[in-house]
């Protein structure tokens, strides 16, 4: 008997939407000109790319000319942070970020700190919400950039971006928002929220990997980090990945049209899964905010057990998930996001991240709710930390 496989790890990778695959297919072999070429072959490719730029812009309420294509969310974050920092150095060398950012924000900031920039990391509360008062207090005349994510990829907490934007702009700094986890899940409007730079990843929209975008508000001072032939208005050189870009455009288009119905359905599945686990299993707790939360995100911790053994046990039941445990990571450190919310190391180790997607159905959620109590019970029976009354 084969176990039915259930994929609840959409934060690690998403399947391509079939409509995205259809949109991309002609651009592998039939349309192959270089968008920079002035002949008809180049024109075809360029038109497709510009259509995609418009589709991505529409998802976030931007103008098409304000969207640059990159190789993904990591490059977008690097370009935003390094590009703004290096271009605006004469105005100041202070950058503010939060304690729960993605490594592709934290590490470029750390690299800049070795080049004479000062980095301030703003704390979050126990739900993972950025402390706006601490942000206000940290801003100085030398602060050139604030980088805060729209929503967190691990615990799903959505940040008060418009309040953050107001505080940042009152000081005259630029605001970069990493929206990789949020885009396609919740509505984003860069003009309404006065966002200066915003990072997107195609794969997190059910588009192909290896493509991303950076929104750069018209007039924003930024310099390239990749030098070459001057593509993407000189800010991102290199012949464009036309098929990938077309795929990202199609993915953004589907996401924009279906966002509200997708989100409503996922919120239903999400809350069914959260309550199914937290209500049925003793000492199981939700990580992150109960309502200010991405529709696809479930992050639950189970005391006295460790996340990787939970992942292995779920995998034996056909369920793919992710963990905040050190043992499931490359660094042997538990999730910095969970620690920033005030969890103890052993609590972070016992956390399980499940991210829902378009293909998941109620049966998937119910299967997890059905198998989890006995998995947790078995691992707790093996653990020396489990109190007698839970055995």
């Amino acid at each position, binding site marked *: 008997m084969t176990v039915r496989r259930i994929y609840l790890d959409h934060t690690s990778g998403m399947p391509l939407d079939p409509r995205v695959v259809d949109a991309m297919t002609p651009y592998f072999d039939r349309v192959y000109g270089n968008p920079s070429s002035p002949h008809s072959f180049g024109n075809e490719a360029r038109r497709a790319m510009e259509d995609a730029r418009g589709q991505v812009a529409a998802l976030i309420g931007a103008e098409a000319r304000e969207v640059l294509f990159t190789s993904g969310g990591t490059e977008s974050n690097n370009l935003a942070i390094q590009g703004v920092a290096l271009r605006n150095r004469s105005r100041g060398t202070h950058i503010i970020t939060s304690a729960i950012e993605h490594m592709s924000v934290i590490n470029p900031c750390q690299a800049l700190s070795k080049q004479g920039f000062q980095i301030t990391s703003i704390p979050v509360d126990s739900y993972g919400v950025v402390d706006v008062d601490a942000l206000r207090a940290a801003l100085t005349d030398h602060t050139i950039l604030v980088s805060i994510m729209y929503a967190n990829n691990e615990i799903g907490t959505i940040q008060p971006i418009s309040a953050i934007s107001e505080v940042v702009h009152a000081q005259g700094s630029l605001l970069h928002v990493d929206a990789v986890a949020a885009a396609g899940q919740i509505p984003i409007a860069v003009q309404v929220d006065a966002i200066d730079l915003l990072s997107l990843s195609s794969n997190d929209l059910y588009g192909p990997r290896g493509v991303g975008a950076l929104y750069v508000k018209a007039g924003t001072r930024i310099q390239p980090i990749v030098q070459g032939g001057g593509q993407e208005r000189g800010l991102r050189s290199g012949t464009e990945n036309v098929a990938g870009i077309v795929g990202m455009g199609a993915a953004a288009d589907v996401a924009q049209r279906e966002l509200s119905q997708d989100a409503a359905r996922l919120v239903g599945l999400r809350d069914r899964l959260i309550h199914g686990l937290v209500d049925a299993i003793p000492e199981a707790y939700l990580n992150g905010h109960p309502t200010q939360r991405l529709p696809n995100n479930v992050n639950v911790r189970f005391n006295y057990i460790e996340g990787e*053994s939970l992942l292995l046990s779920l995998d034996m039941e056909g369920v793919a998930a992710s963990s905040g445990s050190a*043992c499931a990571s490359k660094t042997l450190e538990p999730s910095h996001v969970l620690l920033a919310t005030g969890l103890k190391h052993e609590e972070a180790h016992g956390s399980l991240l499940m991210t829902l997607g378009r293909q998941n159905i109620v049966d998937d959620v119910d299967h997890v709710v059905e198998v989890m109590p006995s998995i947790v019970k078995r691992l707790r029976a093996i653990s020396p930390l489990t109190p007698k009354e839970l055995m």
Partner: protein
Amino acid sequence: MYSDKVMDHFRNPRNMGEIPDADGVGTVGNPVCGDMMNIYIKVKDDRIVDVKFKTFGCGAAIATSSMITELAKGLTLEDAMKLTRSDVADSLDGLPPIKMHCSNLAADGLHEAIKDYRQKKEAEK
């Protein structure tokens, strides 16, 4: 990726549990680091006649604990002290490199249990 043997010991751990009247108990690791185990031994005529474990940790931590109990059962204390981390890993057909250091604590746990037994014995004299 774990070997089939690791997964077998993770799925069906051998000798899991406590020995309430153990002659020696070894505790190694720390829940803060994500791996912690207790090894319990029963000793007769300088030989390990029973051994059990309880482990908080990843798949490798549970599998190595289970394996050390299989390797140690029936050995003299002297031979059991000679069991190494590599013996445990080899008996499991290897461990992923990153797990060799952090989760391969079972041999240390056994040695601690034997030391505990010897100290108690010494104190009785």
